[in-house]
Each structure stands twice: as structure tokens, then as C-alpha cells.
């Protein structure tokens, strides 16, 4: 369970989050939607302790992580896997070394067992036989799959996805969505997906939070939110630009 209370964050003089409250239950698949630059990724990074809030608190399974130091956070982070927007693969390592990184650091397994787990996880993300490739040899979609494999190999309880379909074509986006659903159902993990892709949000989430004006503006089941008559929610879901923002 992840709970965020009155989270406030600024970078310099720019206020990014102005009192965000949300609660994500265990095994829930939560989607956070909102405009680009609206603070979705910043909110996600607070959930795993990559950023520290100016005010407010974050709880993970009842532990207040906002008052922990970096070493104490390492213990909490073992519950998490995170897929980054740009995949953030270690470019000096092969795919297999990337995927096995968490296992090698924290579990005392034989090399044969590590190789077996890497092959099984790559199979789960539909990338069998890519162990020896370098990240530079992979396409954007493949890199995200490797990032996902690296995040789930040690079977975390919570997986965070930072814009998993951004920059991908609709077919690859669809396959990533299917993968998120497969991981959620097979591993029974709590998923938190940050996206502004409405199709993806509708498919992978069972609880959608909309971030607007630096706060959670609306939340609920996808069908509830996607049929909302609230003008701001409607404008975002329908993708209608404000006339004042239209580029001439």
C-alpha cells in the first residue's frame, strides 16, 4: 500500500506539486494521468524515495519513507521495481547483465540459476535470446521491455512505470500495455503507471488519478472517470487544447 499525504515539491521557484493526496491499495493497478510537465514523474519518484518532498509524507506499507536516509531507503526499495521513461539501461552492460543486476547484488544464486532466471524473465517480456545484445543495439520498445525485465526479475511487490508507452508507435504501445497487464496478473504486483496516453490508461488501470493544477483533481474507476462530465476532465480525456494555448 502506498499513501501520499499533502505532498509539496518545488524546484527553485517553480512549484510542481502543491499538496497531493492519494492512496494506492495492494494489488491495485493505479494510473496517474495529467498533462506533460504536470509533475506526474515527480510524484512517482517520491513514491520510491528518489526525490524528497519539501512538505508532506509518503508511506509504503505503513513505513514513512520521507524521514528515512538513503541506506534505510535501500531496504524499502527492494519491494519496488521501476521502469523508466528512457529505460535507463546500463549501457556498459549486456541485456543479460542488466536484467541480472538486482539478482547478483542482493541474492546469492549460482551463475546457472541467474542465467535461468534471466532467460525466463526475458521470455516473459517477449525478448528471448537477446541476452548478449548491448542496449545500443535495441529499439525503443525492446529497451523498455528489458527495463521491465530488470524491474521484475526479483519479483517486487510494487512496479512503477514512468510513461511506458511514450515515444512508441501504437502497435508497440499496445504490446507494452499487454505486458503490464500480464506482469500484473501473473506476479500479482501493485502497479503504478504514469501516462498521458488515454488508451493505455483505460486498458491497464483499475483506479485512475488525474493530476491537474499540481493536485489530484479527480480519481476513480476508469469507466467513472472516462465518462465524467467535468469540463476539465473531459477536456483532458478528449485531448482538446485551450484556445489560448493553440499554436498559430
Amino acid at each position, binding site marked *: 500500500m502506498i499513501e501520499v499525504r499533502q505532498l509539496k515539491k518545488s524546484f527553485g521557484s517553480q512549484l510542481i506539486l502543491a499538496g497531493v493526496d492519494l492512496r494506492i491499495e495492494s494489488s491495485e493497478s493505479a494510473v496517474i494521468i495529467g498533462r506533460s510537465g504536470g509533475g506526474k514523474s515527480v510524484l512517482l519518484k517520491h513514491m520510491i524515495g528518489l526525490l524528497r518532498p519539501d512538505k508532506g509524507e509518503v508511506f509504503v506499507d505503513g513505513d514513512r519513507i520521507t524521514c528515512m536516509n538513503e541506506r534505510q*531507503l*535501500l531496504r524499502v526499495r527492494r519491494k519496488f521495481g521501476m521502469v523508466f521513461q528512457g529505460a535507463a539501461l546500463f549501457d556498459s552492460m549486456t541485456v543479460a547483465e542488466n536484467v541480472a543486476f538486482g539478482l547478483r547484488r542482493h541474492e546469492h544464486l549460482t551463475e546457472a540459476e541467474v542465467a535461468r532466471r534471466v532467460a525466463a524473465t526475458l521470455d516473459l517480456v517477449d525478448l528471448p535470446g537477446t541476452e548478449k545484445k548491448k542496449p545500443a543495439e535495441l529499439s525503443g520498445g525492446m529497451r523498455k521491455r528489458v527495463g521491465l525485465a530488470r524491474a521484475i526479475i526479483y519479483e517486487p511487490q510494487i512496479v512503477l512505470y514512468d510513461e511506458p508507452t511514450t515515444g512508441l508507435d501504437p502497435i508497440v504501445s499496445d504490446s507494452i500495455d499487454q505486458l503490464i497487464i500480464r506482469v500484473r496478473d501473473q506476479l500479482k504486483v501493485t502497479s503504478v503507471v504514469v501516462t498521458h496516453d488515454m488508451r493505455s490508461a483505460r486498458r491497464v488501470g483499475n483506479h485512475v488519478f488525474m493530476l491537474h493544477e499540481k493536485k489530484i483533481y479527480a480519481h476513480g474507476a476508469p469507466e467513472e472517470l472516462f465518462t465524467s462530465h467535468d469540463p476539465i476532465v473531459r477536456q483532458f480525456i478528449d485531448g482538446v487544447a485551450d484556445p489560448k494555448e493553440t499554436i498559430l
Partner: protein
Amino acid sequence: MSFLERTWVGEWLTGLGRIAVLTRDAVASCLTFKASRRDLLYQIYFIGIKSQAVVLVTGAFTGMVLTAQTYFQFHKVKMDTATLAVVAVSMCDELGPVLTALMVAGRVGAAIAAEIGTMRVTEQIDALRTLATHPVDYLVVPRLLASMIALPLLTMESITLGITSGYVVGSQLLGIDPVYLYYDMLKYASDIDVIFGLVKSFVYGGIIALIGCYKGLSCGMGAEGVGRATTEAVVYSSITILITNFFLTLVLQRLFVLLS
């Protein structure tokens, strides 16, 4: 406080504080043996073996030019045979450790800052943290230990080659009596000069690795940020080495006097 932070003094003090915190974390991590032996060996290879050419050339030619210059001055007062003694003491105490450290700072300090800086801008450092790995354990400690192990060895090589090349130039090219040249060197240079040089190079190894890692970990976003971090790593570690050298010389000499 915010006004102070915005001034260069504030920035400098903040940076100094952050390096102190990084040093504390790295030392704590070293004491608990959190670094991987494989990473440490790779860094020793990268810093020690890959720096051979540049360090050997620097050591050899510094010894040669120092011999020639000393001879030209000493010859005027008929002290030719003391030439190699001056070269040996200079190479052991000052030129060997300082020049080796400056060359390694240019090669290794820049590489460390660029590699870690690139990892930071591509979110690889954040990825490490999400994989429950402390960047200090994984990135800083192997580089710090490797640098503090490799630099004294490189300095030893540089000193040895500098004195040897000085001896060859003095005896073969400048015509100084080789026996007296060697005898005077043994008379005026002592073990303590070598120990001073090694202690200094051990400290410089730490400076190069810590400043390189700090600049990489705190680098700004984008290619410009990585470029700036790389340049600053070389400039700051070179300046720090030169300033530290002065104070280390005073402290070590005073310590030697007290102990003897």
C-alpha cells in the same frame, strides 16, 4: 542563507560540504566492504594499467630534463656529481608524485566524471537506486580504492624511470663520472624521500577519485552539464593536488623531524 548560496563563496562552501559528506559515505562504505571485488579489479586495471604509457613518458622525460638543467647550473660551481642526488630527491619528494597525479587527473579524473555524469543524465544513477544499490557503494568506492592503490604504484614507476633516465643522460650524454654520480645520489637521497612520495601519491589518488565522482554525481543535465563536469573535475583536482602538495610537504617534514 539563500543569498549566501547564490554567491560563489556560498557555492564553493556548499560544494566543499558535499565532498565532505561523499568522503564520509565512501569511507564508511569501505569499512563495511560493500564494494564488489570484480569492480575494484576492473578499476585498478583501468586506472593503473591503462595509465602506464602516459606516466612512464612523463617520468622519463622529467628525469632527463631535470638532470640536464641541474647539470648546467652545477657545472658552473663544479658540483657535477651532485646532479643525480638533486634529481632523485626532486623526483621522490615532489615531481614524481605531483606530475604523476596531474597526468592521472587528466586521464582518469575526466573519465570518471564523464562516465558517472552520463549515467546521471540518462537516469542510470536513479535506476541503480531503484535496484536497492547505493551509488557510493557501486560507483565511488571501487574508483576510490583503485585510485589509492594504483597511484602509489604508478608514482614508484615514474620515480624509478625518472632517476634511471637521469643517470643515463648524466653519465652517457653529459659525461659525469657514473660512480660518483651514483654514490652522491645514495648519500643525499634516502628512504624517507621515497616514503614521502608514496604517502603523497596515496592522498592524491583519493583526491582524483573523489573529485571525479563528486563532479559526475552532481553534474547538470544534458551534454553541456557532462562537459562542464569533466572539465571541472580535471581543473579542480589539479589545483587541489598542487595546494595539498605544499601543505603535505610541510606536515610530512615536520612529522619526520618530530619522529626522528
